[in-house]
């Protein structure tokens, strides 16, 4: 088993690496730099790191001013505060004028753990996906995060990068190439297809493995970009497999599941079931306990795949 690294760790390390080569890079944080890992950038480049204090609305909007000057801006807080507290600032001051700011939000989803529901953003992707001009990316592991951060530093559009607190295994193969807007077939199959993102990708692959032992041939597709969705790939795999399941550490409302459902319904309707947080708040607990409590498990994914196949 490979060393586990949280996507937030990979984010901070990559920013620090970019500091030397990208002189236009500016990073902001709202008093959480030790948790979001922007502290790694602050350490090597204090002159281009701005701590705004506990003031997320100001952070997002100051970012807009910096981007107006041509800076490459990353700003970070926990997902619940970046998206929740500062939604309208993101919408009106970043997305509407199409400024190249990446909102890199950490501690997304249930796996924040013991801090409980107030800190567990389960609707952030839904909110960001609804905003015009916004790109939404949910990396699955450290390497995918590193590649995403490097590409976003040069990306001329607003973007939301969703990162996690929990250390996760390296899931993607060594030669994996991340590309904004593209999904990747990690395992081919023809009985059903699982579309997954973030830390649930590993569980999706395990579920496919279990199903294979029962003779069910399940494809697994990594969908790091929730918007713009790789609709061409979604439809191609839907036609090939005839049944689909989406898997994400997010509410079943508005995230990857909704994005895939919208595309399938309009273009190539097939049975689809969604694994995610079932429209309810989280609670305190250890990350693994919470994933189990809310049905984000290998067993549940496998059961949903069988159910989807039965509906063909």
């Amino acid at each position: 088993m490979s060393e586990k690294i949280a996507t937030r760790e990979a984010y901070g390390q990559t920013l620090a690496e970019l500091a030397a080569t990208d002189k236009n890079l500016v990073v902001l944080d709202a008093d959480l730099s030790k948790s979001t890992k922007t502290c790694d950038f602050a350490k090597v480049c204090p002159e281009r790191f701005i701590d705004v204090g506990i003031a997320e609305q100001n952070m997002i909007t100051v970012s807009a001013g910096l981007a107006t000057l041509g800076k490459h801006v990353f700003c970070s807080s926990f997902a619940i505060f970046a998206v929740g507290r500062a939604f309208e600032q993101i919408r009106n001051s970043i997305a509407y004028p199409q400024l190249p700011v990446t909102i890199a939000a950490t501690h997304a989803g249930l796996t924040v753990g013991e801090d409980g529901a107030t800190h567990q953003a389960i609707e952030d992707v839904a909110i960001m996906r609804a905003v015009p001009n916004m790109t939404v990316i949910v990396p699955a592991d450290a390497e995918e995060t590193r590649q995403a951060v490097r590409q976003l530093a040069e990306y001329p559009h607003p973007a939301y990068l969703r990162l996690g607190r929990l250390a996760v295994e390296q899931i993607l193969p060594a030669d994996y190439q991340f590309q904004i807007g593209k999904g990747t077939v990690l395992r081919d199959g023809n009985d059903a297809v699982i579309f997954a993102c973030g830390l649930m990708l590993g569980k999706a692959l395990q579920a496919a493995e279990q199903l294979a032992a029962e003779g069910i041939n399940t494809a697994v597709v990594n969908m790091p970009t929730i918007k713009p969705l790789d609709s061409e790939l979604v439809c191609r795999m839907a036609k090939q497999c005839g049944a689909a399941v989406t898997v994400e550490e997010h509410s079943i409302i508005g995230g990857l599941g909704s994005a895939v459902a919208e595309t399938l319904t309009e273009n190539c309707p097939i049975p689809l079931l969604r694994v995610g947080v079932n429209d309810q708040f989280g609670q305190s607990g250890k990350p693994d306990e919470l994933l189990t409590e809310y049905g984000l498990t290998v067993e549940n994914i496998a059961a949903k795949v069988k159910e989807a196949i039965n509906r063909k």
Partner: protein
Amino acid sequence: MDTLELQAKAKELRQEIIKMITAAGSGHPGGSLSAADILTVLYFDKMNLRPEEPDWTGRDYFVLSKGHAAPAQYAALALRGYFPVEELTGLRKLHSRLQGHPVSSKVPGIDVSTGSLGQGVSVACGLAKGLKIDKLPNHVYTMLGDGECQEGQVWEALMFAAHYQLDNLTVIIDHNRLQIDGQVEKVMNIEPLDKKLDAFGFNVLLVNGHDIEAIQNAIDKAKACQGRPTAIIANTIKGRGVSFMENQAGWHGTAPKPEEAEQALQELA
């Protein structure tokens, strides 16, 4: 331009404001008229600008945090030569680049999209901080409404400006004492505004916002101030220049009817 010429220019601005809001059939005359003299001094005297080259890197920046006064900024830009004055009557119409609130990607001379109160001042802080990082001399101006100061984000931004010693930032408050629901002091009192700004670490200047020379002097003082940002509290009259609009909260967001516009333009002639 000398003082008399600037006064005449401010009158022209007010005429264009009335004409374009009347043509649009909606908009915000009261706060546009109260801001007209200050915008005249900025656009026709104090700011470094190149209308023929709107993105000139040496320019000063102006952020209209009270974005609903867009007609005043559009009038200033058109009269300064950023786009044809005839375009002003397209205000608020379908496919016009003169949106109800300013959009940076559409209008030459508009650097920042505003309209949601409290945000422009933060964007101005970002501009000022970025210019400091690059050790550039450009100055950043932003104008807020007094009612806008009720937004919590304004105070987050002011804290930021003082903390990072943004002496390249001048915050102008158009203190016309009226907001949609009535008098600012009755809706939600913001006083003592000067003491609050002083306590937040600002160099605070009080000025008659309709006295061209006083505005010029205040801006000179603001630019000369080192180590901290300046706030200019400009005492103004909402609807200034049109007798029946002056000091009437009802003219915050109501367009004049054609006969009212005719009377207004006669008064401004």
